[in-house]
């Protein structure tokens, strides 16, 4: 039925099967949309946020998806600026994942604000001192860049490509993609950094606060770095998942290994920097504000925020995957590589989690206790909403667009069309 839309030389499941799959994911999406509408019309009382948790699950999801979407800018940077030409076989997918991540982030932000009708004030009445302003501007701009990067892929659809105008447009756009990659990298550096700055500048919150360079706290650089390290890991992670779902090899091992190797070295250097930062913070920054390291990790109900969380983030999901990806022997093993990138992805999420949630959980006033928080179903549904949306967009893109240039070569169809 839709075979005319499907790229040449590849095999796709039947339309019925596909429709069923979309319907299932679509149901989840609708559940999320319902929750979103509740939040819009009844207000944010639908969430379990409170005056101690002004930032919660949504902001974490925002920070996490943006970090994981960092694969787009970093792979682009490697491909177009540093000339790692091999990565052209995965760049499409990296861009798509980035596009999904960033559009999701914008969507979540639009739900998160108390007065969505006034959300444009962030641009119109911008306060240049605010990290969030920087985030909003760079995020929006970079989302524009990602759209421009994604559009050529859409235009490569068999039917669209038949029109000369679009065919030429695609060609020309490819020609200037390096410029966009550079712009994207520049913008990403700043908004990934400013997201790090979001908690790093909070000098009223000793858990989040970091000293830094000029106006930028150390978390500014750590975030950019970790996004560059974990973003590609997430691209590899999703690629692997896609391969598992489609039961096909989609990207050659050499490409995957190259990206994994670069990500590994990024992760290793990042984690060293993170450890130095943590030690300096624990030994110098926080004590100067009257709190010791154990004030941040002890005495809380159910040990939800025990030292384990630091060990998990820096050790199990930081040092360990870094070493695994750097060591050629382990890296070349697909299963070990998959474990490593998965750990790295969890590590990035965990880092964003503590930098959003734990910052607010830790009591700062001496006569207050720890603050607990458990998201409401509306928050969870609206957070799953972009996941469902992402799956649908990936499914559609995979089905109708030549996302994986090596797919045809890796999965030859008998008789060919």
């Amino acid at each position, binding site marked *: 039925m839709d075979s005319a839309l499907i790229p040449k030389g590849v095999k796709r499941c039947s339309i019925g099967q596909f429709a069923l799959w979309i319907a299932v994911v679509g149901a989840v999406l609708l559940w999320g949309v319902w929750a979103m509408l509740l939040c819009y019309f009844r*207000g*944010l*009382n639908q969430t379990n*946020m*409170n*005056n*101690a*948790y*002004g*930032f919660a699950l949504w902001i974490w999801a925002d920070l996490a998806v943006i970090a994981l979407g960092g694969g787009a800018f970093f792979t682009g940077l490697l491909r177009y600026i540093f000339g790692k030409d091999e990565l052209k076989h995965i760049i499409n997918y990296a861009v798509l994942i980035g596009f999904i991540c960033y559009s999701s982030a914008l969507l979540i932000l639009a739900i*998160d*604000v*108390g*007065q*969505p009708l*006034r*959300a444009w*004030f*962030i641009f119109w*009445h*911008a*306060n240049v*001192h*605010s*990290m*969030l*302003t920087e985030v*909003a501007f760079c995020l929006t701009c970079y989302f524009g860049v990602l759209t421009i990067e994604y559009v050529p892929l859409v235009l490569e659809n068999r039917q669209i490509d038949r029109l000369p105008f679009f065919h030429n447009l695609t060609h020309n756009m490819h020609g200037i993609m390096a410029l966009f990659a550079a712009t994207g990298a520049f913008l990403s550096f700043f908004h990934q950094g400013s997201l790090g700055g*979001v*908690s790093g*500048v*909070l*000098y*009223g*919150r*000793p858990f989040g606060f970091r000293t830094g360079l000029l106006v930028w706290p150390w978390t500014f650089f750590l975030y950019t770095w970790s996004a560059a390290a974990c973003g590609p890991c997430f691209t590899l992670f999703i690629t692997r998942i896609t391969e598992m779902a489609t039961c096909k090899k989609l990207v050659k091992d050499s490409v995957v290994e190259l990206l994994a190797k670069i990500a590994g070295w990024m992760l290793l250097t990042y984690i060293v920097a993170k450890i130095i930062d943590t030690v300096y913070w624990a030994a110098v920054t926080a004590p*100067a*504000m*009257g*709190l010791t390291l154990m*004030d941040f990790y002890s*005495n809380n109900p159910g040990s939800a925020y025990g030292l384990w969380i630091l060990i998990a983030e820096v050790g199990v999901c930081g040092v360990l995957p870094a070493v695994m990806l750097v060591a050629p022997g382990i890296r070349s093993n697909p299963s070990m590589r998959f474990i490593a990138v998965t750990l790295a992805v969890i590590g990035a999420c965990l880092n964003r989690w503590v930098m959003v949630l734990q*910052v*607010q959980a830790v*009591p*700062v*006033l*001496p*006569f*207050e*206790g*720890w*603050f*607990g928080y458990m998201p409401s179903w509306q928050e969870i549904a609206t957070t799953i909403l972009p996941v469902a949306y992402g799956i649908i967009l990936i499914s559609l893109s995979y089905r109708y667009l030549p996302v994986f240039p090596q797919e045809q070569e890796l999965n030859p169809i008998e008789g060919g069309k």
Partner: protein
Amino acid sequence: MDQQNGNTKKYGMVIDLDKCTGCGACMVACMAENNVPFREDDTDKLLSVSWMRVYRLGNGKPFPQVEECYLPRPCQQCEGHAGHSPCVSVCPATATDYDMRTGIVSQIPTRCFGCRYCMAACPYHVRQFNWWDPIWPDGMERMLNPNVSVRMRGVVEKCGFCFHRYQLATDKAYLDGRRELEEGEYQTACAQACPAGAILFGDLNNPTHAVHKIAQPDSTHGGRPRNPKAFRLLERLGTNPKVYYLSSKEWVRKAGDNQVQRTEQTPKA
């Protein structure tokens, strides 16, 4: 508009914890003055809007050595470094600002679009979000004060040292042809109402004002109090607040700045 007059004011408070009885009159005076909404169930203090909150502090000792102290907490009106209070610089839409001429951190709910970054930034939990639409039971909207705008759902609000009273006091002064306010002409609702007289309000920059005389702010050290009985909440964060507390008890003074062993005081939701 003090266009000719260059000298700036720094309105601040001195709250004598030895006098404070924890009665809560300041909270209600504030709510009535500032059109603070209330809900059928306002017992979850983390969902409730109360610009002024009286905390109950304990010395953490068992019966019968236990001691208690009550600490009213309005907005601390942090000056931070050169007006960069923790919350002001983070607001993306310039909905909050630090006014160098009065030292007050303003909050404009109609500009705010509810991102809540300022709430995450404030260590004093001074900033509160309107999770619900403010609803007054039929007829009770008649008690609303026209000098303070009612906040809508989805925005952050906080204490602004009853700034509308400053506006009204200056109006009167202007009509009389004066530019300067006398001490006491501008008072916050809590200071006015406190039946124990525990809250003093005035210009910390003015050596003739009681608040200056009592707190003795050390301008060379970010306003640190020179009065040995005085302290500020979380002094070491460098928030440079304009609310000074007085206590003759050492454990209270230490509790104000994370210098005592932490003890679980009140359960949190």
